């Protein structure tokens, strides 16, 4: 199996590992599909587009998957009222908004986004994954099923008069109640969340702006939030509610459907806006309409889908008690209301002027939750729904209070009112609800009705001594509140302590923080969310109440992220990994401008180069053959680096002593015969043919022959050449030959004069009379050729400058060419010179005989010319001279040198033989030594 190389540290890891065992980096990227190009990446600044998230179904958190499984298997029953957070009565928009908050946080916390939770009002990063109606094909099947059932049931619920509380609005409506009341008073809430920034226009709310719009905008409102286009916030009914909420509604609508049909929302409450008009909450950026202009009721058909989808849930708003404008402010005991409520009441101007009149008799069913003394006949229809709409902890608290007799019905109403007021003011028809704090006949004291856990709240304690005397809007009738809502307490609340309950309550009534909201939603949250302790939540929520922004989350909310970061968020949703894997990948940026952000830079094409260089192993993988080759190469290289073996020095070395001994031997052996003057060595009587031919030619010459003698030998060879040529010249002189001397060497004439002087003494030869020394013949071969072809023209005078060719009586006077000579004798010590003379003069000589007296060293090269007939006679060296003397019978220098010459040759022969034997012995000895070494 091939190992998997870590893209970060390039180390090899066993296959199957997801995380590098060395550096901890992920081996299999999460963006496999993105990297493969199957999914188009989203670049910063681009608006997220709709994405199909059906394939991400498996990425849902476990609790959602379990719910889905239960829903599919039919195990999922309608959530019990105790399990479903009680919502204020029937502010669909508000409930939807709270759903969004919940889901948004859920999505953020779980690292994924549920497409069903995406709402048009949600932040843009959720919009990319929200499943719109036109994109239903991208919605998972289970979600489609839920949606269909919800839509069908919603239609039926529209007919029901029972108000449907928002499942999880129990947290927000309290907080927004504070804010909206303060906003209604035209002041900026002191508890304005810091992350909301400056509340622009919040105090400039138009009279027609409903609290619901404000409440709705409270979630999404943030700097720049008003720049959203209406299209961007176009709601869709199906996406405004989570599946569980839909199922809850569906379950709730079932009994409601059995009830007598409730008045339609259009009849019950004026709709804040139509579908053509921007929602009221968008009026932050719009011109404030006249304060007295009441929102016109809108037909259901004119409403946006998402509003129409919740119209069925708005009847509770229609059943709200009559606003203060009509019913008059209800004085509320200062002891019963918290300070913030009192402040909101005090600062509420003539809200009744702008609030639409609402029948005071109509109370939302949830207001009746704390009216156990109401006739069952009145509360029965709404009980079932109210129980489901109230959070169980509220129900439990109310129930406990009632059971203990601590609360009066008014207190119960007030408690319920505080619980539902937020939703009342957050709903589009909440304007009348804002009037609910006006003094009315149904006043109550919160100080008396606040449970102990609520009394622990700082606000509550503060208001214990300073209860505002603000009229409170009439509470809904107790008949609309089912008493059953107090009966069921969730399991987690059973074991809860009073402090935890108080903390929860405090978190409800104080500025809501995300932690508090999540804590309240713990009943629907997964285990990890439910593990959050209420005490911790209250501790986090307490400072938020006192100081604005103090309790704001330290981490940046999604709305504050830059657009490009938001644009990148959908990429996380398409990561086909489980939530656990995503959680593993979460990290906090520690450097750069994104320092502090958590998991804002996922693997996105473009951020990380898809094409990474092919990883190469840093380890050399070689097989056995390659290792052998490497070893061989290493051996060769090591041999090259080794010093070469020095060969043993040869035994044959330059022996100076031997050289001296041989030289002295030769000199002594040569000198002895000369000194002694002995002639003990006979000259070889076997004359060579060339010598006999030369002697015969000379003998056959006519009397007084005209002979051309060429002296071309160096002074160094004068001893040999003089000895060899002397008997020949002597024979010529004996015949009275006229000698014409010429030489091609500068020293030739001197050698000629010296030799002739030695010989001519006997024959009384006079210069210019019997012999002519023409001297030096320059030009080499050309000069020889010229002389051979034109002797008189080449050298016209002798060495003394005398004209020899034209002088009358000269023996050369008749000689014009070379063939006019009777013979030509060449005395030469060099084969080359002899060859040149032969080559150049053979043809000019014609039939004139060519005789040569040559050195012994030139004989091997000149003899072929004799054999070829080009040279007719030849005397070679000292031996030839001695033989020629012997042949002519006139001993001369040759004979004197002959003994020495013979001894020298004998010594040489002995030396050669001895040397040969010594060489053989040395070779044998060397071979023997080698064999011994080898042995």
């Amino acid at each position, binding site marked *: 199996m091939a190992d998997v190389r870590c893209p970060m540290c390039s180390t090899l890891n066993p296959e199957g590992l997801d995380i590098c065992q060395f550096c901890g980096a992920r081996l299999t990227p999460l963006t496999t599909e993105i990297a493969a190009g199957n999914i188009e990446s989203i670049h910063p600044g681009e608006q997220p587009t709709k994405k199909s998230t059906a394939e991400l179904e498996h990425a849902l958190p476990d609790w959602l998957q379990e719910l889905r499984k239960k829903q599919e298997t039919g195990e999922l029953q309608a959530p019990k009222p105790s399990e479903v957070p009680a919502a204020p009565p029937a502010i669909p928009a508000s409930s939807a908004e709270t759903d969004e908050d919940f889901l948004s946080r859920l999505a953020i916390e779980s690292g994924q986004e549920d497409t069903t939770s995406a709402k048009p009002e949600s932040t843009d990063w959720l919009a990319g994954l929200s499943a719109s109606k036109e994109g239903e094909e991208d919605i998972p099947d289970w979600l489609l099923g839920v949606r269909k059932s919800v839509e069908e049931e919603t239609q039926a619920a529209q007919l029901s008069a029972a108000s449907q509380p928002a499942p999880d609005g129990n947290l927000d409506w309290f907080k927004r109640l504070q804010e909206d009341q303060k906003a209604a008073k035209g002041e900026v809430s002191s508890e304005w969340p810091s992350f909301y920034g400056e509340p622009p226009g919040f105090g400039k709310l138009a009279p027609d702006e409903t609290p619901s719009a404000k409440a709705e905008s409270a979630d999404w409102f943030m700097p720049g939030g008003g720049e959203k286009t209406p299209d961007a916030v176009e709601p869709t009914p199906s996406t405004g509610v989570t599946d569980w909420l839909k199922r809850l509604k569906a379950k709730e609508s079932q009994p409601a459907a059995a009830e007598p049909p409730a008045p339609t929302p259009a009849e019950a409450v004026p709709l804040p806006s139509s579908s053509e008009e921007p929602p009221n909450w968008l009026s932050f950026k719009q011109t404030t309409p006249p304060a007295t202009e009441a929102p016109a009721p809108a037909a259901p058909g004119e409403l946006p889908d998402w509003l129409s989808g919740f119209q069925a849930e708005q009847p509770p708003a229609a059943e709200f008690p009559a606003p203060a404008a009509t019913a008059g402010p209800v004085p509320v005991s200062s002891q019963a209301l918290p300070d913030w409520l009192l402040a909101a009441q005090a600062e509420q101007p003539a809200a009744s002027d702008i609030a639409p009149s609402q029948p005071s008799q109509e109370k939302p069913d949830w207001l009746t939750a704390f009216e156990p003394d109401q006739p069952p006949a009145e509360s029965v229809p709404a009980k079932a729904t109210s129980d489901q709409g109230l959070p169980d902890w509220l129900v439990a608290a109310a129930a406990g209070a009632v059971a203990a007799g601590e609360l009066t019905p008014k207190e119960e109403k007030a408690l319920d009112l505080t619980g539902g007021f937020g939703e009342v003011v957050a709903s589009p028809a909440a304007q009348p609800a804002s009037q609910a704090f006006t003094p009315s006949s149904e006043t109550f004291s919160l100080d008396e009705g606040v449970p102990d856990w609520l009394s622990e709240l700082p606000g509550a304690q503060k208001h214990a001594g300073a209860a505002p005397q603000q009229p409170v809007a009439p509470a809904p009738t107790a008949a609309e509140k089912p008493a059953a809502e107090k009966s069921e307490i969730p399991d987690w609340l059973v074991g809860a302590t009073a402090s935890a309950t108080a903390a929860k309550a405090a978190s409800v009534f104080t500025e809501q923080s995300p932690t508090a909201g999540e804590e309240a939603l713990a009943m629907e949250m997964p285990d990890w969310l439910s593990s959050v302790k209420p005490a911790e939540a209250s501790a986090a929520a307490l400072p938020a109440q006192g100081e604005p922004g103090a309790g704001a989350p330290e981490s940046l909310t999604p709305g504050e992220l830059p657009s490009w970061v938001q644009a990148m968020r959908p990429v996380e949703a398409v990561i086909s990994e489980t939530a656990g894997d995503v959680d593993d990948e979460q990290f906090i940026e520690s450097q750069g401008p994104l320092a502090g952000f958590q998991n804002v830079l996922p693997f996105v094409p473009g951020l990380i180069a898809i094409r990474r260089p092919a990883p190469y192993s840093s380890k050399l993988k070689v097989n056995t053959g390659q290792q052998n080759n490497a070893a061989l190469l290493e051996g060769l290289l090591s041999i090259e680096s080794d010093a070469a073996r020095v060969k043993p020095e040869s035994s044959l070395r330059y022996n100076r002593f031997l050289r001296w001994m041989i030289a002295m031997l030769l000199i002594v052996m040569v000198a002895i015969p000369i000194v002694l003057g002995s002639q003990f060595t006979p000259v070889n009587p076997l004359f060579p043919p060339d010598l006999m031919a030369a002697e015969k030619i000379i003998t056959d010459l006519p009397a007084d022959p005209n002979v051309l003698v060429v002296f071309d030998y160096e002074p160094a060879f004068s001893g040999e050449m003089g000895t060899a040529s002397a008997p020949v010249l002597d024979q010529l002189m004996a015949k009275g030959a006229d000698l014409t001397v010429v030489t091609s060497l500068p020293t030739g004439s001197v050698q000629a004069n010296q030799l002739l002087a030695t010989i001519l003494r006997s024959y009384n030869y006079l210069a210019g009379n019997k012999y002519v020394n023409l001297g030096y013949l320059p030009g080499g071969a050309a000069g020889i050729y010229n002389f051979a072809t034109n002797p008189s023209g080449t050298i016209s005078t002798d060495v003394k400058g005398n004209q020899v060719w034209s002088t009358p009586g000269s023996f050369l006077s008749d000689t014009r060419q070379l063939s006019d000579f009777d013979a030509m004798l060449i005395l030469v010590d060099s084969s080359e010179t002899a060859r040149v003379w032969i080559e150049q003069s053979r043809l000019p000589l014609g039939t004139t005989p060519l005789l040569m007296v040559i050195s*012994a060293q030139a004989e091997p090269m000149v003899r072929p010319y004799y054999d070829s007939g080009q040279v007719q006679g030849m005397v070679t060296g000292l031996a030839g001279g001695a033989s020629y003397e012997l042949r002519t019978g006139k001993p001369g220098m040759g004979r004197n040198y002959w003994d020495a010459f013979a001894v020298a040759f004998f010594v040489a022969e002995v030396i050669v033989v001895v040397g040969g034997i010594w060489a053989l012995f040395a070779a044998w000895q060397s071979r023997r030594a080698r064999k011994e070494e080898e042995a």
Partner: protein
Amino acid sequence: MQAIDIITGIISCLLTIMVLSYLVGDNPLFRIAVYIFVGVSAGFVGAVAFYQVLIPKVVMPLINSPAENLPMLVVPLILGVLLLAKAYPRIGWLGGTSMAFMVGVGAAVAIAGAIIGTLVPQFIAAIEPFGLGSANGIGSVVERLSEGTVMLIGTVTTLAYFHFGVKASGQGAGTRNPIMRIMGLIGQFFIAVTFGVLFAGAYAAAVSALIGRVYFIWNFFVSFF
């Protein structure tokens, strides 16, 4: 004995001993003798060239020859003068013409003489022993055939020895033709004999020179007595 003969004899003996001192190696005496020979030879050659070449062949003809022969004398003179420019590199190019003329003429003469005086006669001489027409008697025929056969074998095998052609083989290294290799071995024998003969001739010439020098020295010393 005249004084001049004694002086020349002493100088000759000293120079001879100085040259023979080379037996002990390169020494100043040998170098002195060599330098003396070189200097004397150069001076002698210069003197010979001046007196035996320039004066009789250039100066005297210019003086004595008639005017109509001057152009024939000026051309060699100019070429000779230009040849002197070779001694100076900056104007050495002036002697190029003279050098070209000399080399050209010398090559032509040498080639012609080699062909006419050596190649053709030696080729004829090599086949001449096989010309039995000139043989006189059986003994002469055998002798000529033997001589011719030896010469032929020697010539062919010697030429075969200097034939370095090889036959291409697949192993990268060329393979010499076996026949040529055998003939080369025989030719090597003839070459060795030839070198032996040449060495013998050189030794004979050297021994003759030594004998002459020893004889001269001995006679010089004997002359005093």
